[in-house]
Each structure stands twice: as structure tokens, then as C-alpha cells.
């Protein structure tokens, strides 16, 4: 067997798995979505049906808000952790990446412990203000839950990018008289641009499709993964569920592809 043949054979398991668990199910999903009474119109219903459209807009806005907040928080914390050496730094970094271990349902449960009826926030506000603040089951609770699992991922990406920055550029800027703000604005943040784009794309796509957290918290709010779930369990509307799934997948895929092309292919490495 020649070397080239051997190398090609090594791709066989990948090809088989991608075919069986990705290409075929996706194709089937797309066909099911168009196989209902309305045919292909099931896809246009995502945008034309008010309830579906409202849910789509809701989900996109929530994912965008999560992404924006995550990037700001992770940029500040990530720059700080990578730039300073102090006792307890390793512990702090470990704490910030700790939530990576939890599935979405557990994250939802933790938000309930934090902001639910028996939660810490309710307890404290109850004592301080005489009125319990409960927001676990609202869009703010969901936002907090999504922040909870996107912050660790983005912090890791940003810390890795900060480590790779060329210190000579900053020194040059400083030598030319730039203050700390100017150095950050004109040198560090632009240099981190690709990392921001890449991690935004991942945070956005994850927040679009996160089911576990939505399942525990979104009892009164409509987000796309929950809508898909209720369409095919409660309403037994398999066609619409499939069409919505394809729509959700398409939005997430476009965002990831955009992130990939704008950041020069770091997205795959980070995901």
C-alpha cells in the first residue's frame, strides 16, 4: 500500500461518521420540513407567521445581547489575568473556567438557586428591601444563564490571543507617548479583533441553540429551541419543527461561517 493510499484510508472513519451522523440526518430534516401539507411554505412560515417570527427575533436578540455582554466581560477579565502575575491567579483562572463542566440543565438549575423563589438574590433583596426579587424564569434569568456558560469559553479564547500579542508593538506605542487608554484603544484591542470575532461567533451560535438552560428557565418566554421542542412534542407538528430546526441551524451556520472568514479561520480552533 502506498503512502498516499494509507493517508486516504485514514480519512475513511471521518467521512463515514460525517455522512451517517451529519449529512444524512440534515438532508432528511430538510426534506421533512418541506413534506407537510403546505410544502415548502413551512420554511417561509418561519418569517411570515407572527408567532414564529417573534420567537426568531427574540432568540436572535437574546443571543446578540449575551454575546455583547460576554465579550466585554471576558475582554476585561482575560486581559487582566494574562497581563498580571499575582498570588491566587491560577485559582482565579480555574474558577473562571469551572462552569465549562456543567450541562445546560445544571446551569438552569443554578440560575434558579441564584434568582428563583428560594434563591440567594430573592433572600437578600427580601431582607434589604422587604420585597423578594425573582427573575430566574424571565428573559433576564435566561440571559444570566447564557452568560454563565459563554463567559468561560470566551475568556479562554481571549487569554490565548492576549498571550500571542507582540509586546514590541505596545512598547513602541508607549515610547511614542501613548497613555494606557490609547495603547488599549489603538494597539491591543485592534490586535485582538480576530479573537473577538471568533469567540463572538461561537458565543452567538451556542446561545441560539442552547436547549438545556431554556428548558429549565423558559417557561413563559419563547426562544427557538423551546419552540421546536413544543412543536414536535405538544403539537406533534413534525414538519414545522423540522423547518424551524433547519432555520435555526442555518442562522447559526451563517454566523459561524462569517466569524470564520472574518477572523481568518480561528473559529474552528476555538470551538
Amino acid at each position, binding site marked *: 500500500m502506498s503512502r*498516499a493510499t494509507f493517508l486516504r484510508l485514514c480519512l475513511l472513519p471521518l467521512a463515514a461518521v460525517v455522512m451517517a451522523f451529519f449529512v444524512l440526518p440534515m438532508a432528511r430534516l430538510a426534506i421533512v420540513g418541506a413534506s407537510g401539507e403546505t410544502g415548502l411554505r413551512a420554511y417561509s412560515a418561519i418569517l411570515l407567521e407572527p408567532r414564529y417570527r417573534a420567537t426568531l427575533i427574540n432568540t436572535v436578540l437574546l443571543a446578540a445581547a449575551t454575546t455583547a455582554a460576554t465579550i466585554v466581560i471576558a475582554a*476585561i477579565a482575560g*486581559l487582566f*489575568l494574562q497581563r498580571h502575575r499575582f498570588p491566587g491567579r491560577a485559582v482565579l483562572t480555574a474558577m473562571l473556567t469551572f462552569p465549562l463542566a456543567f450541562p445546560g440543565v445544571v446551569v438552569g438549575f*443554578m440560575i434558579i438557586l441564584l434568582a428563583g423563589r428560594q434563591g440567594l438574590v430573592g433572600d437578600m433583596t427580601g431582607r434589604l428591601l422587604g420585597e423578594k426579587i425573582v427573575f430566574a424564569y424571565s428573559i433576564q434569568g435566561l440571559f444570566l444563564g447564557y452568560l454563565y456558560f459563554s463567559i468561560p469559553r470566551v475568556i479562554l479564547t481571549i487569554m490565548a490571543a492576549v498571550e500571542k500579542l507582540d509586546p514590541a508593538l505596545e512598547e513602541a506605542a508607549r515610547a511614542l507617548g501613548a497613555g494606557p487608554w490609547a495603547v488599549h484603544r489603538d494597539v491591543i484591542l485592534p490586535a485582538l479583533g480576530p479573537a473577538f470575532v471568533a469567540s463572538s461567533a461561537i458565543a452567538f451560535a451556542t446561545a441560539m441553540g442552547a436547549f438545556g438552560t431554556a428548558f429549565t428557565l423558559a417557561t413563559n418566554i419563547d426562544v427557538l429551541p423551546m419552540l421546536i421542542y413544543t412543536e414536535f412534542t405538544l403539537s406533534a407538528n413534525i414538519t414545522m419543527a423540522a423547518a424551524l430546526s433547519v432555520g435555526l441551524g442555518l442562522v447559526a451556520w451563517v454566523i459561524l461561517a462569517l466569524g470564520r472568514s472574518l477572523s481568518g479561520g480561528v473559529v474552528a480552533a476555538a470551538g
Partner: protein
Amino acid sequence: MRERLIFAGQLLFTLLVAAFLIVPAFLSMLAGVTANYFRGIASGFTLQWVIQVWDLYAETIARSLLIAVATLVVTIVVGSRPPMRSIPAVGGLPASWKR
């Protein structure tokens, strides 16, 4: 002075973020060993919930571990491919370019 203020501000911010990420996890662990969650930690600590979970769900936990290991094996087999650039058929460099 200014440097120290910035450092302190950033440290405080990072600590707050860490608290946001750790406190709920700590709360859930605490809830797991609290005798009566609705009465709070004043009701005392107990391991009875942990033991009950183990009795009821030991098999479930084992099954989750099994699935995780199986996934790991498949991922390693599928992911262990030679670098793409060494395969001309999938867009590698022409042989003459190689050292």
C-alpha cells in the same frame, strides 16, 4: 498610583465575575448537603441526599460515564487523521513544493 487603581479595579471586576460563576455552583453543592432546603442551612447538614442519589442513580451515573468514554473513543478514531496538507487529493500542496 494610577496604575495601582487600574489594577485594583480590574482585579475587583474579575473577582466579581468569578463570584458570579462560582457562587451558584457552591449554592447547589450546599443545597445537596442541607437537611431541609426550604428551611435553609439552619436545618443542619446531612449526607442522606447524597446517599439516596447514589442508591437511586448509581446505574445512571455509570451509564453517563460509559457514553462519555464511547464518545471519546469514536472522536479519537475519527479525529486521528494525518495533516490535510500531506494529502494531495484534498487540496494539499503540490509534491514539488515540499521540502
